């Protein structure tokens, strides 16, 4: 179980976050721009400091640890592949940085499942958008994190590629035991993958629960708009 509890005041936003996520679940944080979604992920990862932040894993406080000790991997929107390292060097970076020997079985499994063996020696700038996404996900999984934080990783992709990558994210849910928090503003991603949904608005969680519970919830503002989109999507998906 991951428990998150913190308050952070910025000049234009007052974040007040408290939630719990079951182990190995796939959760979504949906919210408009400026709601504090990315900031929430960075505080959980320890990349932005927040006084009195409490981040607990199985009841054990990890909020005081530096980012490298938390076993929480952050994947930003731009994927942040290291441009001076090959795809393979990117993937094994986690072992090198922790001075560990490479877990070859895991690396090979991930390379195979994410279909990246063809371009292991290429540099990130020579990859297509979809290939980059797969490499970034593979690199994150190889680190064997407790929690994987995805910060709008699919937002720059077209519909076709997005659907293709959602298949890889489903793979991540099935084959690798990782707790995922996925931030997005696209309800389509959520309807395909979410086990738990949080709606964040102006720094506050205005809804949390299973995606089906949203249909019964009385909700206004951004949540209301999300609900309308989800209803339309559900009708379309049922139609298919």
């Amino acid at each position, binding site marked *: 179980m991951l428990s998150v509890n913190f308050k952070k005041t910025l000049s234009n936003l007052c974040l007040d976050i408290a939630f719990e996520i079951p182990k190995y679940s796939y959760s979504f944080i949906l919210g408009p721009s400026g709601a504090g979604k990315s900031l929430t992920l960075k505080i959980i990862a320890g*990349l932005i400091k927040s006084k009195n932040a409490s981040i607990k894993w199985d009841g054990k406080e990890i909020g005081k640890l530096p980012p*490298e000790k938390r076993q929480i991997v952050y*994947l*930003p929107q731009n994927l942040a592949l290291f*441009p001076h390292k090959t795809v393979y060097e990117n993937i094994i970076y986690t072992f090198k*940085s922790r001075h560990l020997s490479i877990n070859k079985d895991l690396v090979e499994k991930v390379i195979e499942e994410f279909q990246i063996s063809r371009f292991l020696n290429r540099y990130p700038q020579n990859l297509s958008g979809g290939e980059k996404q797969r490499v970034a996900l593979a690199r994150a999984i190889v680190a064997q994190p407790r929690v994987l*934080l995805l910060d709008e990783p699919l937002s720059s992709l077209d519909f076709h590629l997005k659907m293709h990558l959602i298949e890889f994210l489903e793979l991540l849910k099935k084959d690798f035991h990782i707790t995922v928090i996925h931030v997005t503003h696209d309800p389509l991603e959520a309807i395909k993958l979410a086990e738990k949904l949080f709606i964040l608005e102006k720094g506050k969680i205005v809804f949390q629960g299973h995606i089906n519970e949203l249909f019964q919830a009385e909700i206004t503002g951004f949540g209301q708009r999300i609900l309308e989109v989800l209803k339309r999507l559900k009708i379309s998906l049922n139609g298919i």
Partner: protein
Amino acid sequence: MHLFISLTVNEFIKAIYDREVWQAIFTSFIGASLSTFFGCLTGIPFAYILSRYDFKGKKILESIANLPVVIPHVAVGIILISLLSEKSFWGHFFSYFNLSFIDTIYGIVIAMAFVSISYIITSALIGFESVDRELEMVSRTLGATAFYTFWHITFPLALPAIIRGAILAFARAISEVGALLILAYFPKTAPIIMYERFEQYGLKAAHPVTVLVVFFSLIIFFVLLYFSKRHAFR
């Protein structure tokens, strides 16, 4: 080009056999190398701090870093001699370590470092600022310490800019004359020899030395350029 064509073979051979010229070139090379080395040693961490941390007085520090570029170099020599002469506090302090800056190689190095360090700081600052912070963030969450992240992510990505700054600093240092005329005329550097020959014997005497120094400087410049291109990341 005119400089090279207008020189006779005899004059050139005479310059080649001129020991004083070679000593001056050697002194310039050693002085510029050491000043670039110390410039990197202090300028790179300074630039990193400026690029990554916000603190009071940061703008003032940035301005101070650029000061040597705008101060006339003779004035730099006067400032340094007033700071480091044996009667001054610092001169007195360094004399305990048998270090004197007047007419010594140490004086040459410190004068060259003073006039060239801005190039290293400015270029390193541009280099560090161009590195995406999210690369560093991801590196940390993948298990790297801040130190490991600096050496394996930030520094390699900023390196091409740092090398460009170091080349500019080296070129600026090797061509310094104004501050050296005041602080450390001896041991003579290549520009000092050229200036002295021109002042004492005129253009004809300065010409062969100039050709040799320019030729040597160009070789150094192209060698450094080659290495900087090799380090320019793909």
